[in-house]
C-alpha cells in the first residue's frame, strides 16, 4: 500500500470524502454484527458452563480451558496433571500444516519462479492455470483426491498396470494423504505471492553473481532467495494458517487416527454429545495462534517494506 501511494505521487482522491460514513455503514454493520460480534460472543461462551445437550448455561466458569489443559481424573478431585490429549491434537495440526507448507514451498517456489521468468504476455495465462482449481469447490477437490488415491483407485491401478508396484500403496487415512490434501487445497496461496516477488526481482543481480563466478545454485540461495523472502514468508503463512484449522482434508483423507483441530471443534457442536464452551475455547485458542502468526508476519512485512524503501 505504501508503494501505491508513493508511485501515485498525488494525494488520495477524495470525491466522496463527505459521504464516506454512509458508504461504509453497510459493510461496518454487516461485518460488525455478523463476524466481529459473533467472535466476541464466542469469547464469552468459552467462559460459560456447558449444557449437557448442547448450548450453555449462563454461569461463568473456567471449566472449558481447564479441561483443555489439565487432567483432574475421572471425578475431578485428583491433583491436576497436564492433559496431553488436546495439546497433542493441536500439535499434530501444527505439524501437519507445517509439512503441507513445506510441500507447497518445494513445489510452489520452482513453479512461481518458472512462471515469473516466462515472456511477459504468457505469464497471466500460467497464473490463471494455477488458480483455476482453487475456485473449484474444496469439498469436490478433496473428494476427487480421495477417489484418485484410494487403494482400488486410478492411481494404484495405473501403478500396478505399469508394473511399478505389485500391491496397492495405502495412501488414504495416512498423515501423508492429509498433507497432500492440504497442499492441493492451498497451493495457489504459495505460488501467487512468490510469483509476485520473483517478478519484481531484478535479474541483473543474478547476472552480476554469475559474472563473479557464483554457481547457479549459490545464486539462487544467496541472491534470489533473500531478495524474494517477503513473498516466500507471505506464501508460507497463507498456506499454514488455513491448513491448521482445516476440516475437510483431515476428515475425508485422514480418517479417525489423524484428527486435527478442525474436527475436534466440529465434534463439540454436532448432535447432543457436544460441549459448546469447550468448542468455543478451542476455537479461541486456534484464533489466538493465528492472530499471533498474522501479527508477526505484518511486522516482518513492515520491516521488509522499510528496508526496501
Amino acid at each position, binding site marked *: 500500500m505504501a508503494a501505491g501511494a508513493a508511485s501515485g505521487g498525488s494525494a488520495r482522491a*477524495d*470525491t466522496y470524502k463527505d459521504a*464516506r460514513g454512509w458508504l461504509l455503514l453497510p459493510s461496518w454493520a454487516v461485518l460488525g454484527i455478523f463476524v466481529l460480534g*459473533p467472535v466476541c460472543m464466542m469469547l464469552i461462551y468459552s467462559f460459560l458452563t456447558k449444557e449437557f445437550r448442547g448450548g450453555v448455561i449462563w454461569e461463568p466458569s473456567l471449566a472449558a480451558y481447564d479441561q483443555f489443559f489439565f487432567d483432574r481424573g475421572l471425578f475431578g478431585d485428583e491433583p491436576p496433571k497436564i492433559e496431553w490429549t488436546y495439546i497433542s491434537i493441536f500439535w499434530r495440526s501444527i505439524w501437519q500444516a507445517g509439512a503441507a507448507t513445506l510441500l507447497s514451498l518445494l513445489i510452489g517456489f520452482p*513453479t512461481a519462479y518458472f512462471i515469473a521468468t516466462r515472456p511477459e504476455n504468457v505469464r497471466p495465462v500460467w497464473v490463471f492455470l494455477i488458480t483455476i482449481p482453487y475456485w473449484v*469447490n474444496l469439498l469436490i477437490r478433496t473428494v476427487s483426491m480421495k477417489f484418485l488415491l484410494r487403494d482400488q483407485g486410478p492411481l494404484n491401478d495405473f501403478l500396478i498396470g505399469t508394473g511399478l508396484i505389485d500391491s496397492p500403496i495405502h495412501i488414504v487415512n495416512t498423515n501423508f494423504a492429509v498433507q497432500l490434501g492440504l497442499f492441493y487445497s492451498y497451493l495457489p496461496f504459495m505460488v501467487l505471492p512468490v510469483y509476485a516477488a520473483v517478478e519484481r526481482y531484478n535479474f541483473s543481480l543474478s547476472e552480476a553473481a554469475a559474472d563473479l563466478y557464483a554457481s547457479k545454485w549459490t545464486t539462487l540461495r544467496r541472491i534470489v532467495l533473500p531478495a524474494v523472502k517477503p513473498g516466500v514468508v507471505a506464501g508460507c503463512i497463507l498456506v499454514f494458517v488455513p491448513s491448521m484449522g482445516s476440516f475437510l482434508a483431515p476428515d475425508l483423507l485422514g480418517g479417525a487416527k489423524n484428527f486435527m483441530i478442525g474436527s475436534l471443534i466440529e465434534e463439540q457442536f454436532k448432535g447432543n454429545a457436544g460441549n459448546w464452551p469447550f468448542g468455543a475455547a478451542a476455537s479461541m485458542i486456534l484464533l489466538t495462534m493465528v492472530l499471533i502468526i*498474522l501479527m508477526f508476519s505484518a511486522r516482518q512485512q513492515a520491516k521488509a517494506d522499510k528496508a526496501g524503501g
Partner: protein
Amino acid sequence: MAHVNDNIKAYKGFRSITLLCLVVLYAPLVIVTIYSFNASQSITNWEGISLRWYADVFTGPESEKFKVAAFNSFTIAIIAATASTAIATLAATAMVRGGNFKLRTVSFGLISLPLMVPEIVTAVATLIFFNAIGFTRGYMTILVAHIAFCIPFAYLPISARMQGIEDSFEQAAMDLYATRRQAFTRILMPLMAPGIISGFLLAFIVSLDDFIITNFVKGAGVETLPTAIFGSVKQGIKPNIMAISTMLLSISIVMVTISYFVSKSDNTK
C-alpha cells in the same frame, strides 16, 4: 531492465516441477470427470461411456434431495453475491475515493476479517451468535452468514479496479455540471463494471462452494449442495456424486474464466 540472458535465469528442473504441479492440480478433477461418464454401477471398474449417472442425478432416488439443495445453493449464492457486491462497491468508493481518514485501517481490517479468521472459527462464532440471540437456524441464517463472508471477495477486485481509474474522469463530469450522483452512476460505475462483475462472480463461487460455515449454521433439514454431497460421501463415493461434482466444477471453471476475461478487458484506455 537490461535484458538478462535466459541461461542465467533458468534453472534445470523448474519446468518439470511446474508441469508436475499442473498434473497434481488437474489430475483429480480430470479423473472424476472421466469416471462420471462411467456406465458401471461400481466406481472401480470401467464399463464404457454413458450418461446414466447424470440422468440419475435428475431422476434417481436422491434427485429430490439434490433438487432442493441446488435450489437453496443457487438462490443463496445469487442473493448473497448481489448483496455483498453492493455493500463492497459502496465500501470501496469510501476507501478509494474518500480521501485520508482515521478509520481507514480499521475499516480495511474489518472488511478483510473473514479472510483472516479461520473458517471454522467464523463458523463456530456465527452458530453461537444465532443461538445467543435465539434465531432459529435455517435458510435465513445461511444467507446472512454468506453475505458477510462474501464481502471481502467482492471488495478486492472492485477496489483494485477503482484504484486504477483516475478521478479526473469524475472531476471532468462534475466540471461540466454533472451532480456527484450522476458522476457516480454515469461515469464511475461503467468504468468499474469489469471489477464489479468479477467481484460478483467471485462472491457467487465462494458462496456456492462454502461447506464449513454452512454446515454449522444450516440447522436440521436445510441442505445446500456441498452439505448434501458431504452427507452422501460419508457413506462412500458413489457415481452420481461424481456426476454432480463434474457439473458443479464446470460451473465454477466457466465463471472463473468469464471473470478472468472480464477483468482483463480494460475500458479506461
